[in-house]
């Protein structure tokens, strides 16, 4: 090892390009990352293991034992009992609408705050941040009463509106600070060319922020997908419910059905993972977008 470090100092002025000759620290980091990744995967491994175990098997062997049979009834029970395709559609509809609307609202808000520089923007951004930090439990009752009064209680629209606001509070905060650093010269050049406010937003700001917006879109989607409390309160019909609420219906008063819950979690996780895999490249590009400039 020591040889590797002392051997062949890089020629002056030329950085080392060969990644296999960068010393021992690279391998240490790799090992640490691998261990970290494995630790992250342990809960998923347990879920996978127990999703295909019969309840009797689980009760007598515990969560760590290897299943004695390949048991798929838990998966099938969950699928049919909660009418999973409908819940999947509901979740996708809600999370998808929130993601798109949330990003659109954040963009417009942030344009006014970050580039439009409205008066008192610091306070407004602070207010948005505060709204984002409020625990949802504190919001539940006011939301419930308003929704009930305007006839939106038990509709998906109520959840979409609520989460569009909550998510765009964060989005506005983030985008406003990003836009605060937007090169002024670019905006001035556009203005000189006769571009109005709308054209500047659409032709200059939007294309430059696209990677960041894509990341926001994905985050909003996944956050909304995983939300539990507000959908639980606002969507009381089985026809309108989302996947996390359906999962909760597997838990009884005093009894739990661990294998079915595991099976349910497994099915419920798949769409989010697929979504993540599809947009993974966008995510990576968005995060490094600032770094390349």
């Amino acid at each position: 090892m020591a040889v590797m470090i002392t051997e062949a100092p890089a020629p002056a002025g030329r950085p080392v390009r060969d990644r296999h000759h960068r010393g021992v620290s690279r391998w240490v980091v790799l090992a640490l990352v691998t261990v970290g990744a494995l630790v992250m995967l342990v809960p998923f491994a347990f879920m996978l293991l127990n999703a295909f175990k019969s309840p009797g098997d689980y009760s007598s062997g515990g969560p760590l034992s290897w299943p004695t049979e390949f048991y798929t009834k838990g998966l099938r029970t969950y699928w049919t009992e909660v009418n999973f395709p409908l819940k999947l559609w509901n979740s996708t509809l809600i999370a998808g609408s929130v993601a798109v609307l949330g990003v659109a609202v954040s963009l417009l808000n942030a344009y006014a705050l970050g580039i439009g520089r409205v008066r008192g923007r610091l306070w407004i951004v602070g207010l948005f941040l505060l709204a984002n930090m409020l625990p949802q439990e504190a919001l539940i009752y006011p939301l419930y009463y308003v929704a009930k009064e305007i006839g939106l209680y038990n509709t998906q629209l109520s959840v979409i509106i609520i989460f569009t606001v909550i998510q765009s509070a964060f989005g506005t905060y983030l985008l406003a600070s990003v836009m605060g650093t937007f090169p002024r010269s670019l905006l001035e050049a556009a203005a000189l060319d006769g571009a109005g406010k709308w054209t500047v937003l659409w032709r200059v700001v939007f294309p430059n922020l696209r990677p960041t917006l894509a990341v926001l879109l994905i985050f909003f989607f996944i956050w909304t997908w995983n939300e539990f409390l507000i959908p639980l309160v606002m969507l009381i019909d089985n026809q309108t419910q989302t996947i996390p609420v359906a999962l909760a219906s597997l838990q009884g008063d005093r009894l739990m059905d661990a294998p079915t819950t595991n099976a349910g979690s497994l099915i419920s996780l798949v769409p989010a993972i697929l979504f993540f895999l599809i947009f993974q490249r966008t995510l990576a590009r968005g995060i490094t977008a600032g770094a390349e400039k």
Partner: protein
Amino acid sequence: MQRFRRIVTAIALAATATTAVAACGGGDSEDDSGAKTLKLWHYESENSAMGVGWNRAIEIFKAEHPGVEVRFERKAFEQIQQNAGMIINSSEGPDIMEYNKGNATAGLLSSQGLLTDLSAEADKRGWAGKLSPSLQTTARYSDKGVMGSGNWFGVPNYGEYVTVYYNKDLFERNGVKVPTTMAEMTAAMDTFVGKGVTPLGMAGAEYPAGQLFYQLALSKADRQFVDNYQLYKNPVDFKADPLKYGADTFADWVRKGYVAKDSASLKAEDMGTAFIAGKTPMIVSGSWWYGRFKTEMKANWDTFLFPGNTLHAGSSGNLWVVPANSKAKSLAYDFIDITLRPEIQDLIGNNGGVPVAGDPAKISDPKDRKLIEDFNTVSKQDGLAFYPDWPVPGYYDVLVGGFQGLINGSKAPDQVLDTIAKPYADGVKEITGK
């Protein structure tokens, strides 16, 4: 900016309107005989005893009410537990639903005027005659929402009680006979301890410890004590029997090794799975385990009543309630009536549940029959004593904390009784105002 202001005004207006409407909510609409749908919710799983029984009840209801649509939805227990008040205070709620019994749930909603008074129907249809006095306790609530007296706000369909589950194979292998008295019970546990087996499964982190303590205390108690403790008839002295006896005996059992010291941090699920896996000879717990043991356990097992007690922890199961906003009240009453018929009650019994008005002679499986006969014995001698954590809100955690200390030996019985006495007194003072 102007639009923003308009939205703010709209929200403010909506908020004011809400308070005004909420203040005069709960209006009765008795004339709903023309209702054509019955919106019905419960949270029992499809193949549980109640799930099977109620599915049949829905079929009978449909046959007897041609032209009425039943819109049944299976809900999450969590959802009903957390939001029942909000749900039935809206127009989107069900016409009839299953709801949790007790002061903090059905009692609270009844005192807020969100539930329909069922007293007239109970008289007319003879529900009172089908339910024993200790089962009726959880069906009736005073105007303050305290159970035990007042109007009917719910109707139970099934019961539950704490009993002893034992592993027959382990009993035979160790030459232990089924105990019928407390002396035989301790002798049996001594035998197991002598062979290096911990006889009693326990879960200190959840309800089992409190229930065992209560069960032990009840062996020295009478109905007057239960009324004092649960219904606040008279003050309860925690430093005297029966509660003192319960705590002392519990500590004694821990010292003698009947209960494992390291069970202080276990959950009820751990206790149950250890019993299913055949690692524990006995557990003292509720009839809610019965169906699960029946389908999952390979070893031979059965139940016996906690020896020597006439009073047992237990109560009616959850209730059918009719929200005040129900749009089909008379249909809801008809449905409740169907679920109390012998046919449905026996069906619940034959699927491993404990029907409130079941006939053991109609139950085919001997183990099922034993479970129901035992329940009927307890129920007939007015022996259902409810649960130790019922009297005051938040008492569950107090009991868990107290008895964890007793199991792991960090507290003496006297100290535990002190710990649990004060929150009880404070809570009772808050409820009764005395």
